[in-house]
């Protein structure tokens, strides 16, 4: 390790990273806060209904994937819990019951994960496109965080798809 770096670490004048550069102003509403409040305006209510539908659909999609996919159940359940938390912000209640889909898509794990990834991309794009029409600061900050979660899930699903692809198409081993 570079000696200057070590000196910085042990310096008495060190400033807490958390308190100095990421102050209280940056704090976001916790997921327990309901941005609807007690009396949402009609416009806000309309947006909340839209996001409730969006998150409900994503929960159904994840549930459907859990039903049909043979792998990654724990990861998929975590993704679902994220969307349930999003839903709770808008509706003050989460959908805990599992939605059972009996239809078989037959597209396999890779296809299921790809479909789920597309749905999350659509969700992210929808939020991005809706930004220009939403003016409530708390709602904007909340849906930006939801979009950020969508992006993390998109990245995670890409990783899971890579794992499936590697299992199905292992790299060729050569003797060269």
């Amino acid at each position: 390790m570079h000696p200057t770096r070590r000196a910085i670490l042990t310096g008495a004048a060190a400033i807490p990273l958390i308190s100095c550069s990421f102050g209280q102003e940056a704090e976001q509403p916790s997921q327990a806060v309901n941005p609807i409040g007690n009396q949402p305006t009609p416009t806000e209510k309309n947006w909340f209904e839209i996001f409730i539908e969006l998150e409900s659909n994503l929960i159904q999609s994840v549930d459907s994937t859990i039903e049909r996919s043979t792998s990654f159940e724990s990861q998929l359940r975590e993704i679902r819990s994220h969307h349930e938390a999003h839903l709770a912000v808008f509706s003050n209640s989460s959908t805990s019951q599992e939605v059972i889909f009996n239809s078989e898509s037959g597209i396999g794990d890779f296809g299921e994960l790809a479909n789920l990834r597309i749905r999350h991309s659509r969700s992210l794009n929808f939020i991005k496109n809706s930004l220009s029409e939403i003016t409530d600061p708390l709602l904007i900050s909340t849906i930006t965080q939801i979009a950020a979660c969508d992006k993390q899930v998109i990245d995670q699903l890409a990783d899971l798809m890579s794992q499936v692809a590697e299992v199905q198409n292992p790299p060729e081993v050569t003797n060269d």
Partner: protein
Amino acid sequence: MTEEQITALNNVVSGENAAIWAYGFLLAFLNDADYQAGLSTFNSHRNARDAARLKLRALNQNPPRPEPNYDLPFPVSEANSAKQLAAYIEDRLSGIYSAWTATETGDDKTYAFEQAVQAASRYYFWIKETKAFPGAVS
């Protein structure tokens, strides 16, 4: 330009200043496989900081200067804790950019939104974990 916008933009500059310092520090601990990603992210934060500083200057504001030193939120002594620090920084920045998004309009709103999303993506990159509300401080 409202007071809330200027405050949010100041927080972005302060946060990016800290991120630049933190990446400069944690790069020393990353293994070879992650070093280029760390270096690239370091440069991204420097560019983002400079862009935010220019916005403040254009508003006749004095951007906050980087602190001479920072305390780490937890000990960092090897590659894993270095990646935890990178993830910590990205998560906090995602929250800062979300807050800025909420104060802005037009192109700056979209830019702040994209920065919040990218920071969350880098959080996942470093520690392969997801959060329901990236950047939220409980």
